[in-house]
């Protein structure tokens, strides 16, 4: 992978409690009753955020996407069968943006029911190649081909290792 550093000194924010787990504990419900259980509550933006907040940043591996304010709950939009996740690269020239977007997509593909159509975009105005990044992240053929590239999958898995921690 590229060894160039795009943002040597990122801003780190304080993180909050996992929203859905807090609620789930109160209600004595499992957060992971996602598959085909019609009795469970509909999935909301907080739950989707919980799934992606702890993904490691590919450039600053010790930090999560939440800590770097790359993802946040207000940037997730959920409608019955559709999820839109916007993320904010830490710098507008961030060369890791497609990798971050891909890790979010793979995390959601692995954890959400298949009925959801997922769109992933960078926050409008937050990246100099916004259109190109968005197009690549939402081209399922490119995503499928990327996931058959062992070197890329290795990096992705490293970022996703921390994703289930909270």
């Amino acid at each position, binding site marked *: 992978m590229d060894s160039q550093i795009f943002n040597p000194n990122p801003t780190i924010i304080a993180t909050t409690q996992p929203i859905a787990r807090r609620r789930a504990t109160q209600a004595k419900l499992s957060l992971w009753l996602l598959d085909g259980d019609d009795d469970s509550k509909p999935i909301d933006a907080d739950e989707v955020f919980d799934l992606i907040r702890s993904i490691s940043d590919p450039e600053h591996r010790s930090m999560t996407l939440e800590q770097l304010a790359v993802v946040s709950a207000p940037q997730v939009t959920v409608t019955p069968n559709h999820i839109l996740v916007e993320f904010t690269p830490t710098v507008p020239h961030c060369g890791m943006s497609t990798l971050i977007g891909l890790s979010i997509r793979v995390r959601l593909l692995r954890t959400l029911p*298949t009925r959801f*159509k997922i769109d992933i975009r960078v926050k409008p105005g937050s990246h100099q190649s916004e259109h190109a990044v968005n197009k690549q992240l939402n081209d*399922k053929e*490119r995503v*499928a*081909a990327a996931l*058959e590239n062992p070197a890329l999958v290795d990096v992705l898995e490293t970022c996703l290792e921390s994703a289930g921690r909270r």
Partner: protein
Amino acid sequence: MDVDLPYRVVSVADLSGHDDRAWHVAWNPAKPLLATCSADKSVRIYAYTPDPSPNFVLHTSIPTGHTKTVRGIAWSPSGHTLATASFDANIGIWQREDQDDAGEAVGGEWECVTILEGHETECKSVAWSPTGTFLASCSRDKTVWVWEAQPDADFECMGVLMEHTQDVKCVAWHPREEILASASYDDSIKLYLDDPSEDWFCFTTLTGHASTVWSLAWAPNGQYLASASDDRTVRIWKRITEHEWKCVLVLEEHGRTVYSVTWGVGKPGKTDSGSESLGWLASTGGDGRINVWAFEESPEATNKRPPKSRLIARLENAHGVNDVNSIAWCPRKGYEDLIATVGDDGVAKVWKVASV
């Protein structure tokens, strides 16, 4: 379900078996065979019994040996040869082991008779020219290759066309003339001809789609070309002069990316209104919907007038909640009302478009 449409899309067969997303489906033009390919790297071939109620059974499953997804497949016009396009950048050429002198298969396994190497990255689509003389292929490496098929499964590269600025998603040959079309991630469509004294060249570029063009389908009469795009539209391009094509129609009946379009003969001949039928167009995509249009053209139609189009059938959730990746009309006589689809669920489905 739109109850007021004159035709219905009726299920004929549900063929599961792929272990992963199925990408493409192709009817053998000469024999009762249907092929599908998948991210599981296999090709499945189904045989079917004659109409009116065709029964589909698995004929064979080919593991292919491709090291990555098999993205596209194409039968040669004779029906003897199958080409596979894979994300491993290679093209496989397949024939049945035992063929008689006429090339007619008399049995045996499907075997890989040659592998065409040359593309640098994922190969996405392959297509045979109407006479079977040429095979075209395209790739994420932005190129389109034209191969000449020679005896003994030998292929010679006749040209590498580097016209697109991004991935090339699809190649399709004109049904009668040696005109090749390619569609790309760069949002454009390019048409190519063979210059007898020079190489293959791009003679026109069709622009108008606002995003990736995923699929192309020529009208059976060769006077129209349909394109399907990530901009959620299907565009109809009309031949204005020999080498000039113009967009005459934009069909907006999909809610997500349109991944595939196919143009069949439908009900040929004169329609009730005395117009000439241009056949039936079917499209599908990320919204899981199948749309079927009938096209016709009045005899006094001027060059730049769009054909008359009518949505005649629609089916929602053709593969449940899954994306539908490919759709194809059966090209064989007597089976023109059959369409096949494959989806992210790894299932192949066969449908009949029947009057209500």
